[in-house]
């Protein structure tokens, strides 16, 4: 059932970025890359859906360490792209973004840890510290948006697991100075925040224009004009306005409903889970998808500062697609396990 839903979203997304692919010299450049990523993602999905949950549980800390290692490697050795070091070159695949992998790693790790200890007093810091360390590595990339996102995912999972809100607030307070420091260290963050507070940024302005130009029904697939160099990053972070311009509010509604459906379904699957690990895993994976989608909506409509978070499934961007599909696979895995007779 989950798989069918994903198929829907996925086929939709294919249409959307096929329409906006004229950005590169080869009109199908992004489309091809996205198809390759989708195939890889499909493999990831199937694998994630079929690996026994117990094995995943045991692999979780290892994955965290591997991710940390990748992040560190990127930080130290990777060539910088757009003045950041978020990408790792990979043969045959172009490059990957370890910070995307970090989302999965955090979810798996926390699911396992929370299931074991129920997030009681003495264990809290043991959970928080590895996650915090990982976040620090992401932050240093620098990738402010993903850091905040990871922290939010972690906080949510802990909260669900029964962690005291007060303690979470203390942890939050502890990270706050660090975040502030980072914000002052990386001027782009301040810039984005300032843009958000006052006059909206060029990107957001253009995003709003695209949405407005779409109206109810949109200008038709491929007829969007904002993507012609007006709206930056129209093929990834700001794909939503392109959808809005070409398919109108109706298209946006469809996308939103699909995401909500994924969220609702994910929560249902989680509740049908047999053990706390599966429960936490399904919940975390769902949250990764749902929260990212919600944030992307917020950014695209000017309701939140620009973050550099893509819209799951729809935005082009290989690492993200693979990771998000793997997350879907995890949810499906939990769902399958629940249906199997014990």
């Amino acid at each position, binding site marked *: 059932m989950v798989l069918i839903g994903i198929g829907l979203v996925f086929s939709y997304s294919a249409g959307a970025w096929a329409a906006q692919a004229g950005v590169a010299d080869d009109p199908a450049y992004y489309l091809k890359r996205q198809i390759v990523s989708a195939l890889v993602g499909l493999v990831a999905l199937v694998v994630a859906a079929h690996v026994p949950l117990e094995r995943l549980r045991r692999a979780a800390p290892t994955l965290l360490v591997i991710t940390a290692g990748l992040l560190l490697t990127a930080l130290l050795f990777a060539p910088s792209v757009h003045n950041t070091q978020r990408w790792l070159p990979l043969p045959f695949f172009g490059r990957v973004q370890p910070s995307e992998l970090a989302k999965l790693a955090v979810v798996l790790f926390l699911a396992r840890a929370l299931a074991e200890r129920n997030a009681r007093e003495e264990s809290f810091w043991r959970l928080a510290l590895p996650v915090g360390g990982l976040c620090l590595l992401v932050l240093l990339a620098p990738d402010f948006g993903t850091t905040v996102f990871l922290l939010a995912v972690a906080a*949510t999972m802990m*909260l*669900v*697991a*029964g962690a005291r809100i007060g303690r979470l607030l203390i942890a939050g307070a502890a990270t706050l100075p660090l975040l502030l420091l980072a914000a002052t260290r990386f001027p782009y963050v301040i810039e984005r925040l300032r843009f958000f507070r006052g006059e909206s940024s060029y990107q957001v302005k253009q995003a*709003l*224009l*695209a*949405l*407005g*130009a*779409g*109206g*109810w029904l949109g200008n038709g697939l491929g007829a969007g*004009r*904002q993507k*012609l*160099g*007006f*709206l930056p990053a129209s093929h990834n972070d700001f794909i939503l306005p392109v959808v*809005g311009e070409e398919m*109108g*509010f109706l298209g*946006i*509604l469809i996308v*939103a409903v699909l*995401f*909500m459906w994924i*969220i*609702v379904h994910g*929560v249902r699957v*989680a*509740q*049908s*889970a*047999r053990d*706390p690990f599966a*429960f936490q895993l399904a*919940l975390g994976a*769902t*949250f990764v998808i*749902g*929260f990212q*989608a*919600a944030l992307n*909506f*917020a950014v*695209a*409509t000017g*309701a939140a500062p620009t973050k550099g978070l893509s819209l799951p499934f729809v935005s082009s961007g290989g690492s993200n697609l693979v990771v998000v599909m793997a997350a879907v696979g995890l949810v499906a895995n939990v769902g399958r396990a*629940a249906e199997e007779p014990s």
Partner: protein
Amino acid sequence: MIRTADPMAHRARVLFAVLLLFFTALVARTGYIQVWLGEEYADRARAQHFREIEVPATRGSILDRNGRVLAVSYHACSVAVDPARIDDPGLYSLELTLQLGEPQRARELARLVARKKEHGKRFVWVKRRLDREPVEALQDGGRAALVVLEEPRRENPHGAAAASLLGVVGDDACGLCGLEYTFDARLRGRPGTRYVLKEGRGRVPWLLFPERGREAVPGLDVVTTLDLGIQVVAERELQALQDEFSPRWSCALVMDPRNGEIVAMAGRPGLYGGRFRKAPPEAFRVPAVHCNFVPGSTLKPLIMASALHAGVVRPGQTLDCGPGRKRFGGRLLHDVTAHGVLSLADVLVKSSNIGMAQVGRALGMRATYATLRAAGFGARHGIELPGEERGRLTPFKRWHPDQTLVSVSMGHELLVTPLQLATMYCGLLNGGTLHPPRLVSRELAPSVREPRRLPIGPDALDFVRRAMVRVVAEGTGRRARIPGVSVGGKTGTSGKFPKGCGKYTASFVAFAPAEAPRFVVLVVADEPQRPDGGTPYGSIVAAPAAGRILREALRLSDSSSISSPSESGVRLKGHGFGMVRVAAVQSSGATVGEVGSPAGGRNPDSAGEENFEAVECRSDTR
């Protein structure tokens, strides 16, 4: 299995409910933006997506009175290069300029291309407004960096014929001087607009929407009163005069006294065929309109006629002009020779200064001044050319009976333009109606003033007209005689200040047929030099040219009255410049064939090399 009552599940439900709520709110916000505020954003989006670009209209032609083309626009090819596609600017520029026949520009172009390449610029003009053939030859070379654009080019197919008068058109297709300037609004047409979809960051427009935007409305033609054939003759004669006497400036003006139409207006120095970039400032002048001169004796018939009309002198009267010098107040006046006692008509025929001084004194200051004003001196006629001069009259309150009055009677102490003088003659010879001079039809020049009456009766006019016929028949204007035609005329020679400096302005007015003149021809030459060093009298410098122009004008107008107007599609053969094809855009329907150059060479763009034999079109068509 996790129970629904489990606090973990509860917390999860609450959290995800919050997430869903958040999501719903965002979707609602999107809807608000898209649907509620949609139109406003959509307008702003459209404003940045489309750009209106201007499509230039085809400029109207300037035609002569028979519909023959004097100035026409057609599509020429401009050549530019894209520096980004040139690997070796030096070599490329050398090749290109060699092929264009201007290797001397190679270095300059190479430097320009290299600099623009460095700055990432992608456009450098090489040469604008070329003919199609050489550009096609360039393109055959398969140069990827070559950019060829169509631009309108203004061409005067008849070279220097009336070139300064027609004026020039600048690079941005607007008239800069002459008729091109005066009638710019009419000629220009209304540019069309085209909407193009553009990309962000101002990149090249890449889609056209023919269904939106507006068609360009081509400019309208301007039909002038000029007669190309007579104009060409005037140019030729003036060039001959220029070659022989090398005056500072000279002009030949042919007018129709019956309506004030200017049939030909030639001037030297002048432009050549709309080419103006290297022309000296004087070349832009139309001397007939822009130059003042002291008319001298050519003014005398007006004063004489006015005095006759006033009754202060009588036709049968004689005047004693004595031994060729006579004192007026404190001034000693001279005649060329001792005339003795002269009849009133002979005063004009022999152009006696002493006689005219007496006539002027008889007329008086007030009447003389009024006559000059009535004849249009000291004021602009409002001819359809920018910058018309008004000449100069001494303000009446400064007139002195011994100085001003005596001087003005013999055509001194005032400045006139050739146009004013010719117009005055038209009035004298058509029965006293002063038609404002015109270069275009009345409909095109609504601001032209109504004709005025000269305050001179027909008897007085008749008297001076007949005296002027005698000037040519037996007096100073003999060199303007035309066999078989009764011609009238008047010479003028005025010495420049200071006295004895040896500089003169020579002029001659001729008209024919004497009984009912169809043409008035005025030739003026400023500071001409006789090869033999003698005094350059109007009779010697200007009269022969005026006579020949008059003769040709009569002949051409006779033949043109026979040829039907439909024949006005003139075929010009032989000369001009290059082999320019002007089978071009002309709303008039008149076509001009090919115009070539005697030298067979390229662009003789400086004045002085023109050859007008070529364009004697009337004799070809006859």
